[in-house]
């Protein structure tokens, strides 16, 4: 069912919009929450993975005999233990994944494509035996030249990763394989004419390095393959149904025989919307006959799980002297890692999404490289293209002598304007976010020496998709809200709040739980900023169905027509004045009589939520640069965002602050460093530098609410927009502070010091 609510409820809300303490909070801060690595089963074995030390090589042979013979080793697997899948696209995550590529990424077959690529795995009775077994596996490689830099990979003479990969999206079909998996193009109007009309042009070439989602909890799972073929998996994942589907496809099993329970998750940010360990753990469990636990080390997370793309961005803008942009050309080259599938498509569609440009061309290249297969990272693709466009816009403002917010306002998209990616915008709050930062005291605060201020904006689509929610009322009048979406951002609390609002219960009486694949109907995974929107819609509808049922029951008890019953503040109220002596029937009172009035009280709703509202953000960043050390200090950061309606404002603020923190890290210090052999040099948090708490000021979020009419409370997705503007916001602030445009991220101290010396 995909019914649309008539109008979002925004008046007289009692729970939605307040800030109750999150239900999972106490367990998480006291260390009691059960994460994937905390889970144990009797007789459990430890699983570990043998990984390639080469960035690109043919696997000549794998000898596992000695490992199998070692006492305590119960299973050893290689690609030979998996079906050889034909190339097939399947949608289980959020976008179609090529199943064959996914399976090959989990376990290499024939070739290894990055340092860290899994080639074999073992299950043993202890961690040290598993380590010893890995050391006994002999793999013979025929090392091949490798390529990691995106432009080097695009060149004609580059080592080719896949002999059967031919560039898609070209006019004439190519006859030679390439590392360019796909070329896409978005166009409007007449680019040449547009630039001819321009009175001012700015150009820039920008680069970003591969960065990791940086979730604090490494991947972990426990898998149990019973002799009767029933499988159970406990996994740290953003989507238990996705895990089930992928495991079924990769292993050739029936999905109905696999039950996946999501454990508490310590961050995902898109990096856990795929599988790495689960198919291997199941295969090891099948072979050994015992449950198998696999937990990645931080080094494995870096070497073998998806970062997002490193990229090259080229931007050219043309505008009139009054600031109206007449033409824009953007070229994007994104690393996909070992298999095709970088987010260059989304990067292309979002690049100009904030601007109403009459003539443009955006070209994107998806390029495979000998580095870990790229995975989704919070607004995948968008921060990268925004970095280029927003830096160029900053230069344009400077060239025109125009205030940067005014320049964006001049070219802003608004309701009724066609988006750069096609459809016409409706109910967007972009102008409101620009007003919010323009009016904020931060924008007028004075700056001192070596300090600079930068502004940048960003966009993300947000998605809807399939969700199921079940609400059950207990005999004491409390309620349980069951959904299938792992909670990565506080959504669980928001589900409870929406149900509490509709039912008229205090939040303490509503308990949200996240259920496994056998206990709740299908839900698309948690990602794409969809959960509060889509699953919230299902929760609200389920609660509304219950209210309809409660009124019917009250009418039955009172013996009045159901039209005479209303539901107010958690109780049935009789509207017939003549029967006013009835008194209200609370939820608890009705629950106590449920057997007599039709049975247990509950409802389930499954829907495909449509009409997710896109989000816009506008940020201001102040920095101070130490000209002698090149050190950048973030002095102040303000981020305005249109969220539709903040169901739980503290978690909305948390999402904004978290996205900004990741964007700042991306801008200042994070990058993958590879040596000449193609091995990652900084596969740990010591040298892969995410911001620490003392690196950041308190980030001030400004919640702007332009309701999404398609959601019962007006909510739009929140989690991804905030990471889009910071890369350019920081770079623009540094430009203002040191007087030189820096185009290559990260802006680490040695780079800044070198630029200052050359100034």
């Amino acid at each position, binding site marked *: 069912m995909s019914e649309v609510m008539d109008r979002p409820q925004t008046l007289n809300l009692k729970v939605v919009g307040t800030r109750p303490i999150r239900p999972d909070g106490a367990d998480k801060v006291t260390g009691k929450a059960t994460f994937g690595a905390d889970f144990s089963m009797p007789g459990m074995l430890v699983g570990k993975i043998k990984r390639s030390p080469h960035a690109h090589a043919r696997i000549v042979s794998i000898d596992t005999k000695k490992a199998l013979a070692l006492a305590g080793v119960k299973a050893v697997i290689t690609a030979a233990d998996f079906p050889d899948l034909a190339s097939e696209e399947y949608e289980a995550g959020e976008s179609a994944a090529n199943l064959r590529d996914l399976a090959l990424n989990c376990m290499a077959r024939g070739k290894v494509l990055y340092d860290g690529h899994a080639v074999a795995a073992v299950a043993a009775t202890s961690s040290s035996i598993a380590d010893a077994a890995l050391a006994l596996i002999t793999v013979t490689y025929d090392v091949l030249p490798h390529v990691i830099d995106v432009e080097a990979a695009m060149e004609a003479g580059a080592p080719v990763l896949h002999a059967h990969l031919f560039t898609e999206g070209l006019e004439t079909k190519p006859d030679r394989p390439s590392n360019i998996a796909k070329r896409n193009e978005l166009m409007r109007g007449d680019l040449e004419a547009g630039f001819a009309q321009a009175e001012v042009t700015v150009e820039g070439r920008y680069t970003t390095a591969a960065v990791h989602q940086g979730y604090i909890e490494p991947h972990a799972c426990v898998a149990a393959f019973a002799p009767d073929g029933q499988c159970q998996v406990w996994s740290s994942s953003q989507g238990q149904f996705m895990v089930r589907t992928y495991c079924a496809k990769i292993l050739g099993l029936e999905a109905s025989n696999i039950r996946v329970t999501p454990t508490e998750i310590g961050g995902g940010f898109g990096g856990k919307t795929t599988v790495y360990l689960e198919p291997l753990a199941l295969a090891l469990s099948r072979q050994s006959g015992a449950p198998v636990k696999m937990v990645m080390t931080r080094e494995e997370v870096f070497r073998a799980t998806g970062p997002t793309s490193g990229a090259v961005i080229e931007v050219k803008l043309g505008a009139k002297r009054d600031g109206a942009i007449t033409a824009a050309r953007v070229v994007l080259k994104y690393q996909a890692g070992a298999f095709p599938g970088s987010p260059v498509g989304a990067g292309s569609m979002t690049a100009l999404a904030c601007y109403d440009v009459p003539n443009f061309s955006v070209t994107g290249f998806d390029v495979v490289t000998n580095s870990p297969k790229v995975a*989704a990272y919070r*607004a*995948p693709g968008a921060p990268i293209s925004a970095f280029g466009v927003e830096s160029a816009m900053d230069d344009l403002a400077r060239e025109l002598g125009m205030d940067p917010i005014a320049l964006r306002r001049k070219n802003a998209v608004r309701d009724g304007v066609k988006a750069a990616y096609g459809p016409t915008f409706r109910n967007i709050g972009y102008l409101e976010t620009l007003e919010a930062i323009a009016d904020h005291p931060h924008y007028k605060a004075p700056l001192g020496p070596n300090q600079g201020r930068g502004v940048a904006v960003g966009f993300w689509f947000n998605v809807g998709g399939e969700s199921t929610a079940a609400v059950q009322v207990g005999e004491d009048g409390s309620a349980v809200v069951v959904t299938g979406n792992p909670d990565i951002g506080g959504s669980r609390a928001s589900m409870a709040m929406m149900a509490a609002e509709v039912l008229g219960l205090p939040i303490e009486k509503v308990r949200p739980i996240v259920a496994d694949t056998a206990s709740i109907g299908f839900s698309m995974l948690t*990602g*794409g900023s969809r959960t509060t929107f889509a699953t919230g819609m299902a929760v609200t509808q389920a609660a509304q169905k219950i209210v309809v049922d409660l009124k019917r029951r009250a009418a039955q008890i009172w013996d009045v027509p159901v039209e005479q019953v209303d539901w107010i503040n958690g109780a049935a109220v009789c509207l017939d004045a003549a029967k006013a002596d009835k008194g209200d029937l609370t939820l608890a009172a009705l629950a106590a009589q449920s057997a007599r009035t039709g049975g247990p009280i509950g409802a389930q709703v499954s829907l495909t939520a449509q009409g997710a509202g896109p989000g816009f953000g506008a940020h201001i960043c102040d920095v101070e640069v130490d000209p002698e050390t090149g050190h950048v200090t973030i002095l102040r950061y303000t981020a305005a965002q249109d969220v539709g309606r903040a169901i739980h404002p503290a978690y909305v603020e948390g999402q904004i602050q978290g996205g900004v923190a990741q964007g700042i890290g991306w801008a200042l210090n994070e990058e993958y460093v590879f040596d000449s052999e193609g091995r990652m040099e900084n596969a740990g948090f010591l040298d892969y530098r995410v911001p620490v708490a003392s690196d950041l000021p308190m980030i001030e979020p400004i919640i702007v609410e332009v309701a999404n009419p398609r959601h019962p409370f007006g909510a739009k997705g929140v989690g991804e927009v905030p990471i889009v503007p910071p890369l350019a916001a920081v770079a623009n602030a540094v430009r203002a502070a040191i007087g030189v445009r820096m185009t290559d991220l990260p802006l680490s101290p040695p780079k800044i010091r070198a630029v200052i010396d050359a100034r």
Partner: protein
Amino acid sequence: MPHVVAACSTCRQFTDGLVEFDVEADSVRRMIGELDRRFPGLGEHIERRMAIAIDGEIHQDAHGARLAADSEVYLIPRIGGG
């Protein structure tokens, strides 16, 4: 009748470069069917790889969605979030 724009380069390989069409259909399901009839293979391509924006709202897997006579329909690649 609804006006359909294929806002992506991958569709063009089915339509020989054509990007805009008027399609006689009152639902998404019928629109996909009609497009597949005109350009064989495009139907499956849309179902697997594309999202559909109807009058500005993005829909995915929305066979039942109704199309009005003046609906503006955009075919855009499916977006994956993080």
